[in-house]
């Protein structure tokens, strides 16, 4: 009795859905009904109805972008359209197609797999199997690693300007019918295509619908990139924090989809948007998951430390020199006083001169041609800095502070978050100049107050710290070993909460 029960359980675990092991009956309509149900909301999967010269109905099924359209049109379609009714009953006759790697599939589940694995599938009315041709489009040369989001270990492909190619790139990485693609048109005049991607059994339907509504509600003449969608649809448009994760990395988008998040792709831009987001996500890179958890945790801590330095170091310098010089260790106070002795300005002016100079330098080096950028950096950074110290405009220590701050800003992997650091640094400096350490504290508390009240698609932005979720802390400030991380983060309220058992040997 018990044995039977156990087998039943096993069976139910392996049960993947009602369409499993359904053989096609030969009725095209029946098969298409099931396939259409499976491919519901997959706008990138094409079911193309055809009729042969003798009036036999057929259907061509493929994923847009994954197959080579020209080859299908040249080698498959002419033979298909010329098929005679009597040929259908003869298996040998079906080998007429001048392509290699033709498979016959009798089970619907297999057919779905073939479609998702870049096969061109033909269903013919009256035929009890499907013909699957491997005419793939394997050209991936366009997908280059984005310049601004480089990593060392991991996949090096990035998005391109063309929306269909971007969706194809994601489809290549997730061969599942659960990956849904919904197309929209943005811009009253530009009519640019946009697509919302999500994995149906992971993503929370409420959040998905909310995002669909927001995209539908955009009313503008033309959309000049992903940033426009971000600004028009974010929860708190006046916040300095990025509320969408903009990325050009395909692996980042795929990982986000797997966490139940939604990816928005817009035509004519390589930048895709990920939503909902949390604060800590901006400190993670795909590389973190390709290296040991010890190094990954170390890198994350380094990034958090870097962000604290990027915002607060100049403010701390100002506060210590203006109000709390007694807190500086004596051995450091003497050289500090010596270097400041010739400087005629109070610390805040000194810091503002240097920080503004740095920002101007950075902006200038972006606009300059590639060859000239580093030259200006050297002239600005080394020559100007050194001479400014010699001329007595700023102190030595200030140059060190500014240099460290600038470098620390680059530690954060996401540029939008970097913008926040650059702006807030100035606000922190002014607070420190007026209220010293108290100013830094009140400023930090205000930022924290803003962070904990901010939401991304109705989900708390500062989770899993506030509200506290211990389970999600395992992949936030540090990362636990992959074998211990079996659950998806709660930020997107995923429907399927477990990723899998990791290594079954451990159990």
């Amino acid at each position, binding site marked *: 009795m018990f044995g039977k029960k156990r087998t039943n359980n096993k069976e139910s675990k392996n049960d993947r859905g009602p369409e499993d092991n359904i053989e096609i009956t030969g009725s095209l309509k029946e098969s298409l009904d099931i396939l259409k149900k499976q491919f519901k909301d997959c706008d990138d999967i094409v079911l193309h109805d055809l009729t042969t010269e003798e009036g036999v109905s057929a259907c061509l099924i493929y994923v847009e972008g994954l197959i080579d359209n020209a080859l299908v049109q040249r080698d498959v379609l002419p033979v298909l359209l010329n098929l005679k009714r009597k040929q259908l009953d003869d298996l040998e006759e079906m080998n007429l197609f001048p392509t290699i790697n033709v498979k016959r599939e009798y089970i619907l589940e297999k057919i779905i797999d073939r479609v998702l694995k870049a096969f061109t599938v033909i269903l013919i009315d009256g035929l009890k199997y499907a013909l699957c041709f491997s005419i793939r489009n394997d050209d991936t040369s366009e997908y280059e690693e984005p310049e601004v989001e480089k990593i060392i270990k991991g996949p090096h492909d990035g998005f391109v300007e063309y929306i269909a190619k971007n969706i194809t790139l994601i489809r290549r990485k997730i061969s599942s019918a659960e990956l849904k693609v919904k197309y929209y048109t943005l811009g009253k005049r530009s009519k640019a295509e946009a697509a919302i991607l999500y994995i149906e059994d992971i993503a929370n339907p409420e959040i998905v619908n909310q995002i669909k509504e927001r995209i539908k509600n955009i009313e503008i003449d033309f959309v000049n990139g992903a940033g426009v969608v971000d600004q028009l649809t974010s929860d708190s448009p006046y916040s300095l924090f990025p509320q969408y994760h903009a990325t050009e990395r395909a692996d980042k988008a795929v990982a986000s989809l797997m966490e139940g998040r939604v990816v928005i792709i817009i035509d004519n831009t390589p930048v895709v948007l990920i939503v909902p987001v949390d604060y800590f996500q901006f400190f993670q890179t795909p590389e973190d998951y390709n290296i040991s958890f010890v190094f990954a945790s170390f890198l994350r801590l380094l990034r958090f430390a870097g962000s604290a330095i990027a915002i607060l170091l100049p403010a701390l310098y100002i506060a210590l020199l203006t109000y709390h010089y007694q807190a500086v260790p004596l051995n450091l106070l003497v050289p500090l006083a010596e270097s400041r002795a010739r400087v005629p300005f109070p610390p805040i002016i000194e810091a503002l001169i240097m920080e503004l100079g740095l920002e101007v330098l950075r902006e200038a080096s972006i606009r300059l041609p590639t060859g000239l950028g580093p030259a200006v950096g050297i002239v600005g950074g080394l020559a100007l800095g050194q001479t400014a110290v010699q001329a007595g405009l700023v102190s030595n220590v200030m140059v060190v502070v500014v240099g460290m701050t600038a470098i620390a800003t680059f530690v954060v992997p996401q540029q939008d978050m970097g913008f926040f650091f650059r702006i807030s640094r100035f606000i922190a400096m002014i607070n420190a100049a007026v209220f010293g*350490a108290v100013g830094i504290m009140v400023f930090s508390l205000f930022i924290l107050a803003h962070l904990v009240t901010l939401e991304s698609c109705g989900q708390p932005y500062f989770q899993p710290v506030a509200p506290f979720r211990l389970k999600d802390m395992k992949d936030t400030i540090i990362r636990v070993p992959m074998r211990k991380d079996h659950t998806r983060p709660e930020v997107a309220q995923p429907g399927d909460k477990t990723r899998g058992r990791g290594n079954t040997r451990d159990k």
Partner: protein
Amino acid sequence: MINKANEITSGQAVILILSIQIGMGALALPSDIAKIAGYDGWISILIAGLLCFLITVAIILLCKRFEGISILDINTVLFGRFVSFILNLALLLYLVLAAVSNLAFLASSVGVWFFRITPLWILTLYISIPSIYLAGKGLKGICRFNFLLVFIIPVLLSLVFLNIRYFRITNLLPVGIHGMSNILGALPHTAFSYLGFETLLFSFVYIKNKQYIIKHTAIGYLTVIFIFTFFFISNIAILGENLIIKRIVPFVGLARMVSVPVLERLDLYYLVIWIAAMLLSINAYMFFVHDTAKKIFHLKSNKISLGIISGVIIVLASIIGRDSHTVFMVNHLAGNILLFTGGAYPLVLLLFAWISGKGVKCKL
């Protein structure tokens, strides 16, 4: 229909209470108690903790009896429109007093510690910016913010460990020498430190999962009693009873004694962190004042009402905070009134509800 921005969990409601208790209470606790009960004050802390827990349970019983309505509406149900309006006004005044006395204490402390010549109203205004912002955003945001407490408690405890070499257990012996009358006499002062539990009267209506509230409250009280007792005992053991009595805020004394390599004047950093801790209670009271005023006077516009209310609180706090004598006087007055509001008032209400048979039957 409860505004989603105010919806909290029972755990958050307890964290909110803890943050008020520890943020404000822990600071002056040792010297206040030691003045009356000497080094035996830790016994008062334990007894007062237990009493306050019982009162909190009474508050929960009261609020559960009137499921889904706020304390202001409970007053209306029990006493009718006219009397309840006066009672609600009194509650509002009490909340204003709590907010003002806390803010005045914080502002005057910052003035004394850091900015002796800066006009107090500027400090008061500046310090309360995060609280005003949070009060406008709703209770949920405040509870999330006050979770900061979890990171502040280790700071408090680290201060003890950094001074561990001065730790003399003999400072606490022999136990009970100050007599039971003194130990019991210190109870009201000890209870001041536990104040904050009465906010449950106002926050209960916003709690989503009310079934866990008793359990979470018990855990919360165990935590706060442990922290207070530990802090008191270590203060006495490190500084000694005589020194503690002379100091207004022994925390500062402890911080000044610490010396570590590289970082000089560590007390500065501790004081700055403690500003954050004190701000936690102001956040909570600022919200409850605003929320209660909105309900009593049926105010619609969030921004204008918040502006007026925070303006009033800041003006009062900067008037009171000008000299420390007034601050302590108001603090003690507030403490007494708060004890009545927090302690006696819910008990009276509960009794009245029982006798009159009003409200639904309560289930625990």
